[in-house]
């Protein structure tokens, strides 16, 4: 470790050498690509967030508050499409994962650095196509594009379908890259069970990305062809079957739920041991449960269609499999809890986010039980209950974990520490605001308020107003977070190499890392979460179970 900086001028790192816009746009450095992805997904988060705030303001009163029904339908559609395709799906793998994963393996880069850059460019092209639709008549189908509404409505549905098609390839490329990287570029001594659990989760995610995303590509391409050439696959007027579209769509989009949440698990599995200063409980259970989720997650798409008219038998099978897939998620929560038991718990911002995750994701997961239970789903399907449920999983789960990861790796990525006090206040505001916004929506749903409603019955107004006030608290927390994170760039680099005492390899690189990541050839000397003062020798297995 003594010669870490030996071959490099002090103060030289991936951010400042080489310099210039061109060196960034043509880079093959996974860290630079990760950082460019990071700013891109954060921009998407900002846009999608503004749309969410607009939706909530519109719902302050029934009928028109600030916009027309047509505008409202476009705004909630863009909110969903931007958040899912341009923010959450690439947020952890393509932004944070790109940066951290090769470092965790002690590698210089991902296996296919140029493919990595292509992935970023495809993301940009897809994002640009999706956003230009605002000027071409917009899109009002909801992010789910259900036919035959989507084949018969006006606007730029075809363009968005193509945008999703293109962005899908960026996701596939990231997945392919990660699978190859994990197989081939691990440090000497780093067997599969010495991998950080972040890597296991990224592996599971990559499998789903590679296997499921092509189906989405085919589906949106068929939708595009249906609109342009009237091929008659989904449109009943042409002899097609609109429910077939739902099968195709959810065959991707349910696994996509796991593309979104498994990376959340990835981050939590890093933060909790580090801030409990204790080895992870049930390493293998957590690792294998990610793979189990990736596999069983392919077999539950029909639970989005319990009232679509699909057969009772199909409903029963999908319901049963849905309950099965709940178990690995529950196991993870118990494992994280057990990791905290007798730990040395440090409540810094990343850990506060991890604890928020445990609570919010538990609510998200537990409310899924109502929806998996066939009879209860009849009442709750397509109401605000489902809106609340998936926001607890997607935002309370993935986005909270993403924010935790951002705070955890921020000093590594940019070499700067943020103001801890402000970070704690920001986290508290996000937690409170989130619950006020979305817990009320469970109640709206059980009382029968349908989703995607511009106008609503007067008895729902009070809960809608509470929810809207919550969205302002949530927004305030996120703006505060953005402010103190950006403020770190106004001061010199002050972050230590390993501010949290992490045991994984990325903490052995300098902060921020040099372009080649390490000045030495990293060799694994201990397990990723080994906090024993006296560690066993190299060849002894670190984990077993």
């Amino acid at each position, binding site marked *: 470790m003594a010669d870490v900086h030996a071959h490099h001028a002090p103060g030289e790192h991936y951010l400042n050498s080489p310099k210039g816009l061109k060196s960034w746009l043509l880079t093959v450095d996974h860290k630079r690509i990760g950082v460019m992805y990071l700013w891109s997904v954060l921009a998407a988060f900002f846009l999608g967030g503004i749309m969410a705030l607009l939706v909530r303001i519109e719902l302050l009163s029934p009928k028109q508050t600030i916009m027309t029904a047509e505008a409202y339908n476009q705004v909630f559609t863009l909110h969903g499409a931007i958040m899912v395709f341009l923010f959450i799906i690439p947020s952890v793998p393509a932004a944070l994962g790109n940066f951290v994963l090769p470092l965790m393996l002690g590698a210089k880069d991902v296996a296919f650095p140029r493919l990595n850059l292509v992935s970023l460019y495809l993301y940009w092209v897809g994002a640009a196509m999706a956003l230009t639709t605002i000027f071409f008549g917009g899109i009002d189908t909801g992010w789910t594009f*259900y036919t035959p509404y989507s084949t018969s409505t006006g606007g730029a549905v075809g363009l968005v379908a193509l945008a999703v098609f293109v962005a899908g390839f960026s996701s596939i490329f990231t997945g392919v890259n990660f699978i190859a990287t994990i197989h081939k570029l691990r440090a000497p001594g780093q067997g599969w069970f010495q991998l950080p659990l972040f890597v296991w989760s990224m592996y599971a995610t990559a499998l789903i990305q590679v296997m499921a995303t092509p189906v989405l590509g085919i589906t949106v391409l068929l939708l595009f062809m249906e609109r342009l050439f009237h091929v008659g696959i989904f449109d009943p007027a042409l002899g097609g079957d609109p429910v077939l579209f739902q099968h195709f769509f959810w065959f991707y989009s349910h696994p996509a739920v796991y593309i979104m949440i498994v990376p959340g698990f990835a981050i939590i599995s890093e933060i909790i041991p580090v801030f409990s200063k204790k080895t992870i409980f049930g390493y293998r259970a957590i690792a294998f449960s990610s793979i189990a989720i990736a596999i069983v997650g392919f077999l539950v798409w029909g639970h989005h269609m319990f009232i679509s*008219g699909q057969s009772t038998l199909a409903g029963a099978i999908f319901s049963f499999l849905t309950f*099965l897939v709940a178990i690995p998620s529950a196991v993870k929560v*118990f494992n994280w809890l057990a990791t*905290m038991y007798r730990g040395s718990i440090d409540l810094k911002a990343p850990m506060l986010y991890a604890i928020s995750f445990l609570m919010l994701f538990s609510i998200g997961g*537990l409310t899924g039980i109502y929806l998996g239970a066939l009879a209860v789903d009849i009442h709750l399907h397509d109401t605000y209950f489902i809106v609340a449920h998936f926001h607890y999983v997607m935002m309370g789960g993935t986005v909270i974990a993403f924010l935790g990861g951002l705070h955890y790796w921020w000093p590594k990525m940019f070499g700067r520490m943020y103001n801890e006090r402000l970070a704690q206040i920001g986290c508290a505001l996000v937690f409170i605001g989130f619950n006020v916004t979305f817990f009320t929506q469970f109640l709206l749903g059980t*009382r*029968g308020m349908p*989703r995607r409603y511009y106008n609503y019955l007067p008895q729902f107004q009070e809960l809608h107003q509470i929810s809207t006030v919550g969205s302002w608290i949530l927004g305030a927390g996120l703006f505060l977070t953005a402010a103190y994170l950006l403020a770190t760039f106004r001061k010199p680099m002050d972050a230590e190499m390993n501010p949290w005492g992490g045991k994984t390899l990325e903490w052995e690189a300098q902060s921020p890392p040099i372009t080649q990541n390490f000045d030495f050839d990293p060799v694994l000397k201990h397990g990723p979460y080994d906090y024993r003062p006296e560690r066993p020798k190299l060849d002894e297995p670190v984990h077993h179970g």
Partner: protein
Amino acid sequence: MTWLRDWMMGPQASTLAPNIDNLFMFISAVNTFFFVLIVGLILVFVKKYRRRSPNEITPHITHNQTLEIIWSVLPLFILIGIFFWGFHGYVVAQISPANSIEIQVTAKKWVWQFEYPDGMRTLNDIHVPVNRPVRLVMNSEDVIHSFFVPAFRIKKDVLPNRYTEAWFHATRPGVYQVLCTEYCGKGHSDMLAKIHVDDDATYQKWLVEGDEEMKKMPLKELGQLVYENKGCATCHSLDGTRGQGPTWKGVFGQTRQFADGSSAVADENYIRESVLDPQKHIVQGYEPIMPTYQGLMRPRELLGAIEYIKSLK
């Protein structure tokens, strides 16, 4: 706990509701237990094991097989139990009782149209008797809609290319809200209807006297509605062309020649007889195929049909 259930789920007004709500409350109890357990453990651990010095040494606990098996298998059993309960309720909600009243539902942007067995049609508003099962056979004329009655705990998508069905057995008289729950565009949130659950006497009266709107309708318009809705249009033209039956155009006041050689002037009583007892006199050159409408038409509807025929000069 009834107050809590009502506070969360709203009133129960069908035979399906209690079972669904009981399962809902059971899941709520299970969830509350696990959520309190998780949050409780977090709070206890955070308080008890809060870092006091940077050099604290923690025990190296890698796993505990017994514990892990317990917390995997125990929730699995609970979930399988919930699965069967939910499955049972779902099957019950899929199969309508044999003695159901059948109502056809047609959805289109952004209205609900209902049609009774006797051909009466209503818009965004239906009456059903209390304590009788009602089966809804549903179809859409454009995009997918979804028929949702919160108080009955029923919901089913309404598709353009096939029929779907739902049923309910209302247990309390009252007026219940119907909402569309599959996004269908600009008017989605205004695609509402009302179900009036009447006691038997009120329902019978409504069946005889018909829809409020139809009561107010001028006779001629009502007659036109009857012509369109009750199947007259299938055989009788309005423009003089020959169908399965004679055209209605100009028929009023004409002398009709019958197959048995007799004849009569088509006046009000002749038309009434043709509707209620069509086999009595068959117009020459036509087959005796018209069914009787005895009991299928309200008195005012018959009057309307007569007025309508009169107007077709």
